[in-house]
């Protein structure tokens, strides 16, 4: 990182979960990368806005304890984690589709 770069620190990947109705189970809707839980909440809410969610929650990916698989990449059945903002990242079908399509 350049010495004069005003932004320090590494983003964490947060897994995003949501449900449309109180009676629904949470489903994994995608991931965001953020420098803090606060921004992860904002990014998740504004990115995955394809439904009127009853409830949404985020958790840092590294907070999960793996049960039967150790190898990377660790995802929760969703798309692979977003990389460095490359064009290829836009092609992941379930990744940022919600926000880009609206």
């Amino acid at each position, binding site marked *: 990182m350049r010495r004069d*770069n*005003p932004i320090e620190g590494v983003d964490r990947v947060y897994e995003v979960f949501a449900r449309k109705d109180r009676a629904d189970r949470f489903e994994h809707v995608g991931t965001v990368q953020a420098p803090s839980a606060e921004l992860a*909440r*904002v990014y998740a809410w504004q990115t995955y806005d394809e439904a009127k969610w009853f409830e949404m929650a985020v958790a840092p990916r590294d907070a999960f304890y793996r049960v039967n698989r150790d190898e990377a990449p660790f995802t929760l059945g969703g798309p692979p984690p977003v990389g460095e903002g490359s064009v290829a990242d836009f092609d992941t079908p379930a990744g*940022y589709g919600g926000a880009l399509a609206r």
Partner: protein
Amino acid sequence: MSDVDTAARAFKAAEDLPGAVREPMGELLLVLADNKRLLGMRYSDWILGAPALEAGIACSAMAQDEWGHGRIVYAMLRDFGYDPHHLEHERDASEYRSSELLDRPAEGWPDLLALNLLLDTALSVQFEAMAESSFEPVHYKVQKLLDEERFHFEHARGWTARLATTPQGRRSLERAFAPAWRACLRWFGPSDDPVDAALEGAGIIDAGPDLLRARWLSRVGPVVSGAGLELAEETGVGWTTHVDATWDDDWKPGWRRSAEADGPDEDTLRRVRGDKNRPLLMD
């Protein structure tokens, strides 16, 4: 709804408002609508080029929120004798009542954060003062708007904290926040603003300029202070600032903007009015 609620919301439409209040209320709504519209444009300037893909998406969402809020308020102005189409598409720069902070694009990300944290919060504080308004059309619109604004504030707070983690970032915040800080203190208007007194008297807003400024300070004070900026401090009586807000001649009262600034620059005006697509405009 109880009798008390019914009585509290005495004004179901603009025509029900007392004569002395109707015009000032229309002006306040126009100020708010113009600020929302222009602020939305400033967010949209950063959909591409924000420091992170997610931040760009956040700017896109915030721009859409602001435009939505602006559209709702412009539509309300029809009942106050304004022509919304004219307001949105046909005015000169000198007719806009948006803050001078919005006259030109934010130069850098810290400048956008200044708008995001300081000005957007000022607008929300003003809307909050109408959450229980005696003017029913506003009362019914405010809560959803404020729900959306909660995320704008958290975006601003998260990014301000992040930039503040390096000396370079903190310096960039200091440079960007100083002018916006003073402009936002001024934005609520002088203590003795007669327009606000009339609106408060009629129960349309629940507080005048000084109290609204204090509410704004209590919201943004902890954020700027946490970032190490010497703009606000907490005292025994709440958050205060050593920065003086003075108005003198450089103020247009009903417009809530500097009298010396000309209005949105040419490119801003062209875009905000939709000049490029004028032949395609539909009502």
